[in-house]
Protein backbone atom coordinates (compact mmCIF):
# COMPACT_ATOMS: atom_id res chain seq x y z
CA UNK A 1 0.00 0.00 0.00
CA UNK A 2 1.12 3.50 -0.74
CA UNK A 3 0.51 4.54 2.83
CA UNK A 4 3.12 2.16 4.11
CA UNK A 5 5.71 3.18 1.54
CA UNK A 6 5.51 6.91 1.97
CA UNK A 7 7.17 8.73 4.80
CA UNK A 8 5.19 11.93 4.83
CA UNK A 9 6.51 14.53 7.22
CA UNK A 10 6.57 18.31 7.27
CA UNK A 11 9.59 20.57 7.62
CA UNK A 12 9.67 19.91 11.35
CA UNK A 13 9.65 16.15 10.96
CA UNK A 14 6.08 15.91 12.17
CA UNK A 15 3.44 13.82 10.35
CA UNK A 16 1.66 15.83 7.68
CA UNK A 17 -1.99 16.86 8.19
CA UNK A 18 -4.54 14.24 7.16
CA UNK A 19 -5.80 16.16 4.13
CA UNK A 20 -2.24 16.40 2.78
CA UNK A 21 -1.56 12.75 3.47
CA UNK A 22 -4.74 11.63 1.70
CA UNK A 23 -4.09 13.90 -1.28
CA UNK A 24 -0.47 12.83 -1.69
CA UNK A 25 -1.28 9.15 -1.27
CA UNK A 26 -4.02 9.40 -3.90
CA UNK A 27 -1.64 11.19 -6.28
CA UNK A 28 1.07 8.63 -5.60
CA UNK A 29 -1.27 5.74 -6.34
CA UNK A 30 -2.39 7.40 -9.53
CA UNK A 31 1.21 7.99 -10.69
CA UNK A 32 2.18 4.47 -9.73
CA UNK A 33 -0.60 3.14 -11.94
CA UNK A 34 -0.09 5.50 -14.87
CA UNK A 35 3.69 5.41 -14.93
CA UNK A 36 4.09 1.74 -14.16
CA UNK A 37 7.69 1.23 -15.26
CA UNK A 38 8.81 4.18 -13.20
CA UNK A 39 11.02 3.42 -10.20
CA UNK A 40 8.76 3.31 -7.17
CA UNK A 41 11.44 4.59 -4.84
CA UNK A 42 12.00 7.67 -7.00
CA UNK A 43 8.27 8.19 -7.23
CA UNK A 44 7.92 7.89 -3.45
CA UNK A 45 10.67 10.47 -2.97
CA UNK A 46 8.80 12.81 -5.31
CA UNK A 47 5.54 12.27 -3.40
CA UNK A 48 7.31 13.00 -0.12
CA UNK A 49 8.75 16.19 -1.60
CA UNK A 50 5.28 17.20 -2.75
CA UNK A 51 3.90 16.59 0.76
CA UNK A 52 6.67 18.71 2.26
CA UNK A 53 5.98 21.54 -0.19
CA UNK A 54 2.26 21.32 0.53
CA UNK A 55 2.88 21.65 4.26
CA UNK A 56 4.89 24.81 3.64
CA UNK A 57 2.12 26.43 1.63
CA UNK A 58 -0.90 24.76 3.14
CA UNK A 59 -2.80 28.01 3.65
CA UNK A 60 -2.57 28.87 -0.04
CA UNK A 61 -3.73 25.48 -1.29
CA UNK A 62 -7.36 25.46 -2.22
CA UNK A 63 -7.65 21.81 -3.17
CA UNK A 64 -4.96 19.53 -1.74
CA UNK A 65 -5.75 16.64 -4.06
CA UNK A 66 -5.68 18.76 -7.19
CA UNK A 67 -2.42 20.32 -6.03
CA UNK A 68 -0.86 16.95 -5.26
CA UNK A 69 -1.76 15.42 -8.62
CA UNK A 70 -0.58 18.46 -10.55
CA UNK A 71 2.63 18.77 -8.54
CA UNK A 72 3.50 15.10 -8.85
CA UNK A 73 2.78 15.13 -12.57
CA UNK A 74 4.98 18.21 -12.92
CA UNK A 75 7.78 16.47 -11.05
CA UNK A 76 7.46 13.41 -13.27
CA UNK A 77 7.67 15.49 -16.45
CA UNK A 78 10.60 17.37 -15.04
CA UNK A 79 12.32 14.11 -14.29
CA UNK A 80 11.71 12.81 -17.79
CA UNK A 81 13.18 15.96 -19.26
CA UNK A 82 16.26 15.71 -17.05
CA UNK A 83 16.81 12.02 -17.82
CA UNK A 84 16.92 11.49 -21.57
CA UNK A 85 16.68 7.98 -22.89
CA UNK A 86 19.81 5.92 -23.24
CA UNK A 87 20.11 3.59 -26.17
CA UNK A 88 21.43 0.17 -25.34
CA UNK A 89 22.14 -2.61 -27.75
CA UNK A 90 20.21 -5.79 -27.29
CA UNK A 91 20.36 -9.05 -29.20
CA UNK A 92 17.16 -10.29 -30.78
CA UNK A 93 17.15 -13.11 -28.26
CA UNK A 94 17.27 -10.63 -25.41
CA UNK A 95 14.47 -8.63 -26.99
CA UNK A 96 12.37 -11.79 -27.32
CA UNK A 97 13.09 -12.59 -23.69
CA UNK A 98 11.51 -9.36 -22.56
CA UNK A 99 8.06 -9.92 -21.11
CA UNK A 100 5.25 -8.93 -23.43
CA UNK A 101 3.62 -6.71 -20.86
CA UNK A 102 6.85 -4.81 -20.27
CA UNK A 103 6.17 -1.36 -21.71
CA UNK A 104 8.73 -0.31 -24.26
CA UNK A 105 9.45 3.26 -23.27
CA UNK A 106 10.01 5.81 -25.93
CA UNK A 107 12.19 8.82 -25.75
CA UNK A 108 10.96 12.36 -25.16
CA UNK A 109 11.76 13.27 -28.76
CA UNK A 110 9.72 10.37 -30.05
CA UNK A 111 6.93 11.29 -27.71
CA UNK A 112 6.95 14.87 -28.97
CA UNK A 113 6.86 13.57 -32.51
CA UNK A 114 3.92 11.35 -31.67
CA UNK A 115 2.05 14.20 -29.98
CA UNK A 116 2.62 16.55 -32.88
CA UNK A 117 1.40 13.85 -35.27
CA UNK A 118 -1.70 13.37 -33.20
CA UNK A 119 -2.35 17.10 -33.09
CA UNK A 120 -1.80 17.40 -36.83
CA UNK A 121 -3.78 14.39 -37.97
CA UNK A 122 -6.53 14.14 -35.44
CA UNK A 123 -9.22 16.75 -35.60
CA UNK A 124 -10.65 18.39 -32.51
CA UNK A 125 -13.72 16.17 -32.91
CA UNK A 126 -11.59 13.03 -33.16
CA UNK A 127 -9.79 13.91 -29.95
CA UNK A 128 -13.07 14.59 -28.22
CA UNK A 129 -14.39 11.23 -29.38
CA UNK A 130 -11.28 9.52 -28.06
CA UNK A 131 -11.48 11.31 -24.73
CA UNK A 132 -15.11 10.23 -24.38
CA UNK A 133 -14.05 6.66 -25.11
CA UNK A 134 -11.49 7.04 -22.33
CA UNK A 135 -14.44 7.87 -20.09
CA UNK A 136 -15.97 4.49 -20.97
CA UNK A 137 -18.77 6.00 -23.00
CA UNK A 138 -20.23 4.00 -25.87
CA UNK A 139 -21.60 5.07 -29.27
CA UNK A 140 -25.01 5.82 -27.83
CA UNK A 141 -23.64 8.26 -25.22
CA UNK A 142 -21.26 9.78 -27.74
CA UNK A 143 -24.17 10.34 -30.12
CA UNK A 144 -25.98 12.11 -27.30
CA UNK A 145 -22.91 14.19 -26.42
CA UNK A 146 -22.56 15.47 -29.99
CA UNK A 147 -26.27 15.44 -30.74
CA UNK A 148 -25.79 13.18 -33.73
CA UNK A 149 -27.26 9.85 -34.75
CA UNK A 150 -26.02 6.56 -33.42
CA UNK A 151 -24.77 5.60 -36.85
CA UNK A 152 -22.81 8.87 -37.19
CA UNK A 153 -21.31 8.38 -33.72
CA UNK A 154 -20.23 4.84 -34.53
CA UNK A 155 -18.69 6.11 -37.74
CA UNK A 156 -16.88 8.90 -35.86
CA UNK A 157 -15.48 6.42 -33.36
CA UNK A 158 -14.26 4.13 -36.12
CA UNK A 159 -12.66 7.05 -37.96
CA UNK A 160 -10.87 8.34 -34.88
CA UNK A 161 -9.54 4.88 -34.09
CA UNK A 162 -8.39 4.30 -37.66
CA UNK A 163 -6.58 7.61 -37.69
CA UNK A 164 -4.91 6.90 -34.38
CA UNK A 165 -3.82 3.47 -35.61
CA UNK A 166 -2.44 5.05 -38.78
CA UNK A 167 -0.47 7.60 -36.75
CA UNK A 168 1.01 4.88 -34.55
CA UNK A 169 1.96 2.65 -37.48
CA UNK A 170 3.55 5.63 -39.27
CA UNK A 171 5.53 6.56 -36.18
CA UNK A 172 6.75 2.99 -35.77
CA UNK A 173 7.68 2.77 -39.43
CA UNK A 174 9.62 6.01 -39.18
CA UNK A 175 11.38 4.77 -36.11
CA UNK A 176 12.25 1.51 -37.86
CA UNK A 177 13.66 3.34 -40.88
CA UNK A 178 15.71 5.63 -38.69
CA UNK A 179 17.15 2.70 -36.81
CA UNK A 180 17.67 0.71 -40.01
CA UNK A 181 16.25 -2.32 -38.39
CA UNK A 182 14.97 -4.04 -41.48
CA UNK A 183 17.91 -6.13 -42.62
CA UNK A 184 20.35 -5.88 -39.78
CA UNK A 185 20.48 -7.25 -36.26
CA UNK A 186 18.18 -5.05 -34.32
CA UNK A 187 19.25 -2.27 -32.02
CA UNK A 188 16.29 -1.51 -29.83
CA UNK A 189 15.72 1.84 -28.22
CA UNK A 190 15.23 1.00 -24.56
CA UNK A 191 14.97 3.61 -21.91
CA UNK A 192 16.73 2.84 -18.68
CA UNK A 193 16.26 4.91 -15.60
Amino acid at each position, binding site marked *: MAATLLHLVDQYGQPVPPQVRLAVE*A*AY*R*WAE*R*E*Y*RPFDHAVLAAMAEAVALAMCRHLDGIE*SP*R*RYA*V*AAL*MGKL*HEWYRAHPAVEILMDPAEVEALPDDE*PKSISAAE*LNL*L*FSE*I*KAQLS*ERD*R*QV*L*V*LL*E*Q*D*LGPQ*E*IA*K*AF*EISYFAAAKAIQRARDR*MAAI*LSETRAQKGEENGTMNRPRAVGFKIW
Partner: protein
Amino acid sequence: MKPIRQFFLEANPNPERQGCPDEKTLKDIAENRLPADHPARLHLASCSPCFAEFRSFKGQFETKSASRRRILAWGIAACLLVAVGLFRVKAIIKKSDGNVATSQAQKQGAELAAVDRTIDLFNHGTVRGGADPNPLEAVSLPSSLVHLHLILPRFSDAGSYVVAVTRDRAGTAIVARGTGKTRGDGQRLLLDVSLDLRGAQAGSYFLATVRESDNGTYYYPLNVQGR
Protein backbone atom coordinates in the same frame (compact mmCIF):
# COMPACT_ATOMS: atom_id res chain seq x y z
CA MET B 1 0.37 3.33 -21.23
CA LYS B 2 -1.82 3.79 -24.27
CA PRO B 3 -0.37 6.52 -26.52
CA ILE B 4 -3.63 8.41 -26.68
CA ARG B 5 -3.87 8.39 -22.89
CA GLN B 6 -0.32 9.64 -22.69
CA PHE B 7 -1.25 12.32 -25.18
CA PHE B 8 -4.18 13.53 -23.10
CA LEU B 9 -2.05 13.32 -19.99
CA GLU B 10 0.87 15.37 -21.25
CA ALA B 11 0.15 17.22 -24.46
CA ASN B 12 -2.25 19.86 -23.13
CA PRO B 13 -0.64 21.68 -20.23
CA ASN B 14 -2.89 24.13 -18.50
CA PRO B 15 -0.85 25.45 -15.58
CA GLU B 16 -3.32 28.25 -14.86
CA ARG B 17 -6.17 25.75 -14.85
CA GLN B 18 -8.30 28.02 -16.97
CA GLY B 19 -11.82 26.82 -17.60
CA CYS B 20 -11.31 23.74 -15.43
CA PRO B 21 -14.27 22.15 -13.68
CA ASP B 22 -14.12 21.57 -9.95
CA GLU B 23 -12.94 18.36 -8.34
CA LYS B 24 -16.42 17.07 -7.71
CA THR B 25 -17.30 17.30 -11.40
CA LEU B 26 -14.17 15.40 -12.35
CA LYS B 27 -14.98 12.79 -9.75
CA ASP B 28 -18.52 12.50 -11.08
CA ILE B 29 -17.16 12.02 -14.60
CA ALA B 30 -14.82 9.31 -13.33
CA GLU B 31 -17.72 7.59 -11.62
CA ASN B 32 -19.91 8.11 -14.69
CA ARG B 33 -22.54 10.05 -12.81
CA LEU B 34 -22.78 12.97 -15.23
CA PRO B 35 -24.81 12.98 -18.44
CA ALA B 36 -22.96 12.21 -21.64
CA ASP B 37 -23.43 15.72 -22.97
CA HIS B 38 -21.96 17.47 -19.93
CA PRO B 39 -19.43 20.06 -21.23
CA ALA B 40 -16.81 19.05 -18.65
CA ARG B 41 -16.45 15.70 -20.39
CA LEU B 42 -15.12 17.34 -23.54
CA HIS B 43 -12.90 19.67 -21.52
CA LEU B 44 -10.71 16.66 -20.67
CA ALA B 45 -9.64 16.49 -24.31
CA SER B 46 -7.89 19.84 -24.01
CA CYS B 47 -6.59 19.91 -20.42
CA SER B 48 -3.93 17.51 -19.22
CA PRO B 49 -4.16 18.36 -15.50
CA CYS B 50 -7.89 17.72 -15.56
CA PHE B 51 -7.36 14.48 -17.44
CA ALA B 52 -4.77 13.46 -14.86
CA GLU B 53 -7.20 14.22 -12.05
CA PHE B 54 -9.93 12.34 -13.86
CA ARG B 55 -7.63 9.34 -14.23
CA SER B 56 -6.75 9.55 -10.56
CA PHE B 57 -10.41 9.53 -9.52
CA LYS B 58 -11.18 6.78 -12.01
CA GLY B 59 -8.40 4.61 -10.65
CA GLN B 60 -9.62 5.17 -7.13
CA PHE B 61 -13.19 4.37 -8.14
CA GLU B 62 -12.14 1.20 -9.95
CA THR B 63 -10.13 0.06 -6.94
CA LYS B 64 -13.09 0.71 -4.66
CA SER B 65 -15.48 -1.06 -7.03
CA ALA B 66 -13.14 -4.02 -7.28
CA SER B 67 -12.82 -4.27 -3.51
CA ARG B 68 -16.60 -3.88 -3.15
CA ARG B 69 -17.11 -6.67 -5.68
CA ARG B 70 -14.58 -8.78 -3.82
CA ILE B 71 -16.35 -8.12 -0.51
CA LEU B 72 -19.68 -8.90 -2.12
CA ALA B 73 -18.32 -12.13 -3.55
CA TRP B 74 -16.89 -13.09 -0.16
CA GLY B 75 -20.19 -12.14 1.47
CA ILE B 76 -22.15 -14.31 -0.93
CA ALA B 77 -19.70 -17.15 -0.41
CA ALA B 78 -19.98 -16.75 3.38
CA CYS B 79 -23.79 -16.69 3.18
CA LEU B 80 -23.74 -19.83 1.06
CA LEU B 81 -21.42 -21.50 3.52
CA VAL B 82 -23.62 -20.51 6.44
CA ALA B 83 -26.72 -21.68 4.56
CA VAL B 84 -25.10 -25.01 3.74
CA GLY B 85 -23.91 -25.29 7.35
CA LEU B 86 -27.39 -24.54 8.70
CA PHE B 87 -28.90 -27.01 6.29
CA ARG B 88 -26.43 -29.66 7.42
CA VAL B 89 -27.02 -28.90 11.10
CA LYS B 90 -30.78 -29.02 10.55
CA ALA B 91 -30.44 -32.33 8.75
CA ILE B 92 -28.27 -33.72 11.56
CA ILE B 93 -30.71 -32.49 14.23
CA LYS B 94 -33.62 -33.96 12.28
CA LYS B 95 -31.78 -37.24 11.97
CA SER B 96 -30.85 -37.34 15.64
CA ASP B 97 -34.45 -36.40 16.56
CA GLY B 98 -35.56 -39.34 14.48
CA ASN B 99 -33.06 -41.55 16.24
CA VAL B 100 -34.14 -40.26 19.65
CA ALA B 101 -37.79 -40.77 18.76
CA THR B 102 -37.02 -44.25 17.53
CA SER B 103 -35.03 -45.10 20.63
CA GLN B 104 -37.72 -43.63 22.85
CA ALA B 105 -40.36 -45.60 21.00
CA GLN B 106 -38.22 -48.69 21.36
CA LYS B 107 -37.77 -47.91 25.03
CA GLN B 108 -41.48 -47.34 25.49
CA GLY B 109 -42.16 -50.48 23.55
CA ALA B 110 -39.76 -52.33 25.77
CA GLU B 111 -41.45 -50.86 28.81
CA LEU B 112 -44.87 -51.76 27.49
CA ALA B 113 -43.79 -55.25 26.53
CA ALA B 114 -44.88 -57.50 29.34
CA VAL B 115 -42.51 -60.04 30.81
CA ASP B 116 -43.81 -63.50 31.55
CA ARG B 117 -42.76 -64.91 34.86
CA THR B 118 -43.87 -67.94 36.75
CA ILE B 119 -43.70 -68.33 40.50
CA ASP B 120 -44.37 -71.71 41.91
CA LEU B 121 -45.80 -71.58 45.46
CA PHE B 122 -47.17 -75.09 45.34
CA ASN B 123 -44.78 -76.45 47.91
CA HIS B 124 -44.67 -73.30 50.01
CA GLY B 125 -47.93 -73.43 51.74
CA THR B 126 -48.25 -71.52 54.96
CA VAL B 127 -48.44 -73.51 58.15
CA ARG B 128 -51.42 -73.09 60.35
CA GLY B 129 -50.71 -71.38 63.63
CA GLY B 130 -49.15 -68.24 62.21
CA ALA B 131 -45.75 -69.75 61.54
CA ASP B 132 -43.75 -68.26 58.62
CA PRO B 133 -43.94 -70.11 55.40
CA ASN B 134 -40.88 -71.85 54.14
CA PRO B 135 -38.59 -69.22 52.77
CA LEU B 136 -38.74 -68.83 48.99
CA GLU B 137 -35.51 -69.15 47.16
CA ALA B 138 -34.62 -67.00 44.20
CA VAL B 139 -38.11 -65.65 43.64
CA SER B 140 -37.65 -62.42 41.85
CA LEU B 141 -39.43 -60.24 39.38
CA PRO B 142 -38.10 -57.53 37.10
CA SER B 143 -39.19 -53.93 37.55
CA SER B 144 -41.35 -53.93 34.42
CA LEU B 145 -44.79 -54.97 33.35
CA VAL B 146 -45.06 -58.58 34.42
CA HIS B 147 -47.51 -61.24 33.39
CA LEU B 148 -47.29 -63.40 36.38
CA HIS B 149 -48.28 -67.04 36.30
CA LEU B 150 -48.66 -67.89 39.88
CA ILE B 151 -48.99 -71.52 40.99
CA LEU B 152 -50.88 -71.27 44.24
CA PRO B 153 -49.88 -73.27 47.32
CA ARG B 154 -51.20 -76.70 47.83
CA PHE B 155 -54.76 -76.84 49.17
CA SER B 156 -55.56 -73.33 48.03
CA ASP B 157 -59.17 -72.66 47.18
CA ALA B 158 -60.26 -71.74 43.70
CA GLY B 159 -61.77 -68.32 43.09
CA SER B 160 -60.81 -64.73 42.47
CA TYR B 161 -57.55 -63.63 43.99
CA VAL B 162 -55.92 -60.31 44.52
CA VAL B 163 -52.16 -60.37 44.14
CA ALA B 164 -50.14 -57.42 45.36
CA VAL B 165 -46.52 -56.45 45.77
CA THR B 166 -46.05 -54.63 49.06
CA ARG B 167 -43.19 -53.17 50.96
CA ASP B 168 -44.24 -54.61 54.28
CA ARG B 169 -46.47 -57.25 55.73
CA ALA B 170 -49.02 -54.70 56.89
CA GLY B 171 -50.15 -54.39 53.33
CA THR B 172 -50.22 -50.58 53.41
CA ALA B 173 -47.46 -49.76 50.95
CA ILE B 174 -48.73 -51.44 47.83
CA VAL B 175 -46.41 -51.10 44.85
CA ALA B 176 -48.46 -53.10 42.34
CA ARG B 177 -51.68 -54.93 42.37
CA GLY B 178 -53.54 -57.31 40.11
CA THR B 179 -56.55 -59.63 40.17
CA GLY B 180 -57.27 -62.88 38.47
CA LYS B 181 -59.29 -66.04 38.63
CA THR B 182 -57.74 -69.39 39.28
CA ARG B 183 -57.75 -72.13 36.74
CA GLY B 184 -57.03 -75.72 37.41
CA ASP B 185 -54.09 -77.65 36.08
CA GLY B 186 -54.41 -81.09 37.53
CA GLN B 187 -53.90 -80.78 41.25
CA ARG B 188 -52.53 -77.31 40.94
CA LEU B 189 -54.31 -73.99 40.81
CA LEU B 190 -52.90 -71.45 38.44
CA LEU B 191 -53.51 -67.76 38.67
CA ASP B 192 -52.63 -65.28 35.91
CA VAL B 193 -52.27 -61.65 36.93
CA SER B 194 -50.61 -58.63 35.48
CA LEU B 195 -48.42 -56.56 37.77
CA ASP B 196 -47.02 -53.18 36.80
CA LEU B 197 -43.66 -53.02 38.54
CA ARG B 198 -42.21 -50.25 36.35
CA GLY B 199 -42.35 -47.82 39.21
CA ALA B 200 -40.80 -50.22 41.69
CA GLN B 201 -37.20 -49.75 42.67
CA ALA B 202 -34.97 -52.75 43.02
CA GLY B 203 -35.13 -54.23 46.47
CA SER B 204 -36.96 -56.55 48.84
CA TYR B 205 -40.73 -56.71 48.78
CA PHE B 206 -43.54 -59.08 49.64
CA LEU B 207 -45.85 -60.84 47.29
CA ALA B 208 -49.25 -60.84 48.92
CA THR B 209 -52.13 -63.08 47.89
CA VAL B 210 -55.66 -62.93 49.17
CA ARG B 211 -58.78 -64.65 48.04
CA GLU B 212 -61.53 -62.08 47.66
CA SER B 213 -63.99 -63.80 49.94
CA ASP B 214 -61.31 -64.46 52.61
CA ASN B 215 -59.75 -62.04 55.01
CA GLY B 216 -56.46 -63.79 55.37
CA THR B 217 -53.53 -62.50 53.35
CA TYR B 218 -50.44 -64.57 52.72
CA TYR B 219 -47.08 -62.91 52.22
CA TYR B 220 -44.13 -64.32 50.39
CA PRO B 221 -40.74 -62.65 50.22
CA LEU B 222 -39.91 -61.26 46.84
CA ASN B 223 -37.00 -59.52 45.20
CA VAL B 224 -37.56 -56.92 42.56
CA GLN B 225 -34.63 -56.56 40.20
CA GLY B 226 -33.82 -53.42 38.32
CA ARG B 227 -33.98 -53.25 34.49
